[in-house]
């Protein structure tokens, strides 16, 4: 069904960014515009999600060029769910940024760049053309470079060099893959590719191309052994930026893996095993990294890597239950990881440091905020009935039915290590007594109540979303179930795009 409203979620952020450019150096106006923009974006995304959920897959042909010749935008359930989650996270980050980001950064265009980034993300989720996907990726990474370096502290630039080098390399691999794919099939439309790839005589060159995509997206989504850039750069920018990166940027890589390896390529046995091995190693290495880190944000960076292993392993098992678990985990992860970095930002506001040995006593001083944070941490650890628990059941069940006990074992070990890490974080930061010899710089207490509210509200919004995902799991399971069905049977997608 053709519906031009798909593009609204992209356009709204473009217009917000352009409007903000007109109000250059007027930071108050930019803040209001940003919150208004993300709120409108959220409404459009919710509308799109309801339309797709109750109706069918929507498409839009750019400039009315018919698929497969023109660029097509497709909103199936996976895309629209991702757009919805992105919009929720963007809303929260935008509210948090209003006080959580320094005025100096805002003067240099923090908000317009942030909106360009979200625009790029939504575009990447919605496009149905593989070269267009590359272009959206570039929109995202150039915006993220600027966000990462804005402020220009030494640590930030150090992180940015690694981040930039790896991301440009990833894009080059991805582009090489696109070039090869065009050479083989003569098409760039993903639905058209899905039809043409099985007809290619020389399947080994198809597999070679698939490896290029795997490496490109693997770097972006930070899977083992391609993740080392992430923990060395995500702890450097301001927390609001890190929240956007941690919650959304790696997940766009995961989305691309899901899209390309379910629609365009169908993984063979070797690929599946490769995914599972990568998943297991990502879980284990990420987990051990998380155990030894003593800085809250470095720890959270490793947690990102760590939990991506669950999703990749689920994709590797490639059964309906496994995909369901992986998609559910992705839904849960996007919200929780964004929230974690916002929490790190709040801790920084409260105590002026993120080093666990210098922190302590937050529960005694701020019991309400601590309880709110506890909800998030518990759902990350997967305490039933919170949201991290349900997808793991499906992943373990899928592992058992595929007789893949190594994966089951690593999911279980991974869950325990998450619990341990969270328990350590909780006791070090919240329960331990105040370290006596440290000078506490609390920049939260002197703030006006309204500004305090702006810092706590986004964490509350995301925590409420997490609670909703956990307590209404049957609804989310239905969504994830339909997504995994669409992944395994791509005919509705192809029909919707090509119209035959």
């Amino acid at each position: 069904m053709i519906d031009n409203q798909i593009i609204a979620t992209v356009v709204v952020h473009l217009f917000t960014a352009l409007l903000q450019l007109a109000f250059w150096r007027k930071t108050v106006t930019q803040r209001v515009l940003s919150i208004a923009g993300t709120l409108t974006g959220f409404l459009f995304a919710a509308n799109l999600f309801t339309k797709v959920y109750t109706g069918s897959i929507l498409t839009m042909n750019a400039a009315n060029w018919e698929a497969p010749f023109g660029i097509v935008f497709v909103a199936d359930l996976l895309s629209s769910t991702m757009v919805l989650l992105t919009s929720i996270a963007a809303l929260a980050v935008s509210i948090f940024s209003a006080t959580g980001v320094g005025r100096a950064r805002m003067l240099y265009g923090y908000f317009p760049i942030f909106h360009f980034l979200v625009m790029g993300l939504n575009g990447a989720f919605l496009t149905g053309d593989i070269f267009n996907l590359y272009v959206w990726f570039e929109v995202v990474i150039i915006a993220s470079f600027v966000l990462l370096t804005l402020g220009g502290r030494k640590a930030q630039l150090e992180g940015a060099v690694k981040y930039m080098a790896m991301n440009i390399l990833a894009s080059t691999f991805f582009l090489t893959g696109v070039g090869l794919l065009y050479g083989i099939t003569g098409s760039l439309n993903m639905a058209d590719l899905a039809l043409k790839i099985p007809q290619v005589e020389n399947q080994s060159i198809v597999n070679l191309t698939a490896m290029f995509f795997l490496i490109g997206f693997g770097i972006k989504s930070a899977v083992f052994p391609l993740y080392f850039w992430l923990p060395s750069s995500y702890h450097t920018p301001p927390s609001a930026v890190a929240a956007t990166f941690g919650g959304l940027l790696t997940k766009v890589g995961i989305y691309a893996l899901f899209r390309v390896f379910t629609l365009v390529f169908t993984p063979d046995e070797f690929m599946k095993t490769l995914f599972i091995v990568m998943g297991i190693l990502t879980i284990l290495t990420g987990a051990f990294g998380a155990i030894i880190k003593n800085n809250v944000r470095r720890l959270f960076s490793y947690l990102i890597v760590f939990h991506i292993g669950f999703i990749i392993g689920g994709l590797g098992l490639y059964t309906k239950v496994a995909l369901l678990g992986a998609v559910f985990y992705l839904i849960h992860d996007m919200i929780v990881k964004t929230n974690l970095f916002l929490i790190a930002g709040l801790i920084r506001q409260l105590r002026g440091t993120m080093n666990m040995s210098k922190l302590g006593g937050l529960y005694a001083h701020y019991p309400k905020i601590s309880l709110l944070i506890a909800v998030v941490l518990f759902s990350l650890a997967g305490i039933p009935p919170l949201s991290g628990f349900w997808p793991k059941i499906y992943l373990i069940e899928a592992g058992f039915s595929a007789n893949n006990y190594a994966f089951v074992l690593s999911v279980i070990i991974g869950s325990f290590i998450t619990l341990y890490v969270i328990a350590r974080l909780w006791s070090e930061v919240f329960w331990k007594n105040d370290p006596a010899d440290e000078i506490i710089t609390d920049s939260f207490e002197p703030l006006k109540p309204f500004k305090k509210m702006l810092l706590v509200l986004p964490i509350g919004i995301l925590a409420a979303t997490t609670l909703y995902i956990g307590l209404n799991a049957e609804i989310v399971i239905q969504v994830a179930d339909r997504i995994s069905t669409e992944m395994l049977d791509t005919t509705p997608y192809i029909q919707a795009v090509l119209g035959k």
Partner: protein
Amino acid sequence: MVLIGVLYAAGVYFILRRSMVRLLLGIMLLGNGTNILIFLLGNITKGKPPIIDADLKVFADIYADPIPQALILTAIVISFGLTSFAIVLLKRVYALIGSDDLDDLNTPEEEDI
């Protein structure tokens, strides 16, 4: 074909070096290698128009495919933007750290805030 191989190999080699300038050169070489790859894979045709007659339903004659050129144009513009950003970033890093060595870029965890 050989040129692409050389560009890719040189690009990867440069990226694997520790120097930041070589990193930059490596990125540029890889980008150009990819562009030529797309150009080559688009089946270059000489002296044919990139259009087909309106009344023809199928490709009767060999025609020049304009899409690879459009792709490369996009890729060139993007890599130009990325490269210029990278140059500015690396220049800034050099001014701040005073070293061209990527290994000097590690602040130990103890110095974190």
